[in-house]
């Protein structure tokens, strides 16, 4: 068989998701954001929810998410995505409403909105990209920055007496009565990507079935902010970030998992 015979449309087994637009994503090479965008597009397409999905963009690197996935989007003020999502879901209860937020948006300026939306048990999904740094503004310290981790605003490493401790917002969310599914995943290997895809699907199904709020944290890399190559950043994430943010389900009411 020649290569020309092989490369024909009927032999395609994997291609760019249909809902991912052709426009180039502005993310740095190897960024986890693009990976999660791809998964969100795949899951929405597989669930046939293209016409019934509303995403809420955050402020942060993912601020242009509305340009990349071909569904309806609303751009929220910084940190206010869960509040906007709550309103949209109450107006259109049959729609899938999800927010897509980074750690600066969700765990810093939007902590109040996030905690209260989760606690009210709004039927929304929150996708939380945790890369332990403020990627867009130049790698400053975030609430989720690890102890001892060097960033541009804590060049000698994060210290408890000066900067406080990392905020375990996902663990906090698991203790709230309004949440039905809280999980922590990553997108650095094929297996992890498949697990994250399943988690996203489960969270979206929970939202559609009005089971309560779902939070999917995705421990991510920010290779530009961390000043590493994409492959090195994945290794560093496995070695350091997973110690502070271990992967797995924190709460799943269906399976009876409550940690």
């Amino acid at each position, binding site marked *: 068989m020649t*290569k020309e015979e092989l490369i024909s449309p009927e032999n395609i087994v*994997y291609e*760019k998701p249909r809902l*991912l637009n052709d426009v180039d994503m502005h993310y740095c090479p*190897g960024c986890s*954001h*693009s*990976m999660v965008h791809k998964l969100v597009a795949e899951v929405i397409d597989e669930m046939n929810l293209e016409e019934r999905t509303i995403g809420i963009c955050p402020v942060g690197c993912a601020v242009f998410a509305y340009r990349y996935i071909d569904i309806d989007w609303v751009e929220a003020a910084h940190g206010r995505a869960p509040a906007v999502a709550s309103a949209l879901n109450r107006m259109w209860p049959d729609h899938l409403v999800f927010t897509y937020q980074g750690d600066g948006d969700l765990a810093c300026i939007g902590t109040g909105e996030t905690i209260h939306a989760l606690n009210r048990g709004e039927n929304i999904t929150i996708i939380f990209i945790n890369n332990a740094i403020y990627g867009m503004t130049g790698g400053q310290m975030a609430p989720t920055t690890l102890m001892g981790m060097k960033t541009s605003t804590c060049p000698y490493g994060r210290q408890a007496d000066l900067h406080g401790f990392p905020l375990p917002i996902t663990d906090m969310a698991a203790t709230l009565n309004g949440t039905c599914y809280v999980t922590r995943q990553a997108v650095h290997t*094929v297996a992890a990507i498949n697990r994250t895809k399943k988690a996203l699907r489960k969270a979206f199904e929970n939202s559609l079935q009005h089971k309560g709020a779902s939070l999917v944290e995705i421990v991510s890399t920010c290779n530009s902010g961390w000043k590493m190559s994409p492959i090195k950043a994945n290794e560093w994430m496995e070695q350091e970030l997973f110690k502070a943010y271990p992967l797995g389900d924190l709460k799943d009411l269906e399976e009876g998992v409550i940690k």
Partner: protein
Amino acid sequence: MKKVNGAIVVNAERCKGCGLCVNACRLGLITMTKKTVNHKGYPYAEQQDWEKCNACRACAIVCPDGCITVYKSETSVD
């Protein structure tokens, strides 16, 4: 016996040269261009020895930007 024929096509203009696919390919068939860049100025991924590809899709799954299309076909070999 069946032989699996696989090949990938990289959207070179969309590729950002992150190299995650190079790392993901267990057969080591993907390389980055050394002397040519795309319109964004990034080196891009290229498949070498496509005859060895088994269409496992690992490179395409880990590609953050969805630049890789995987083709697979089975032919019977006696």
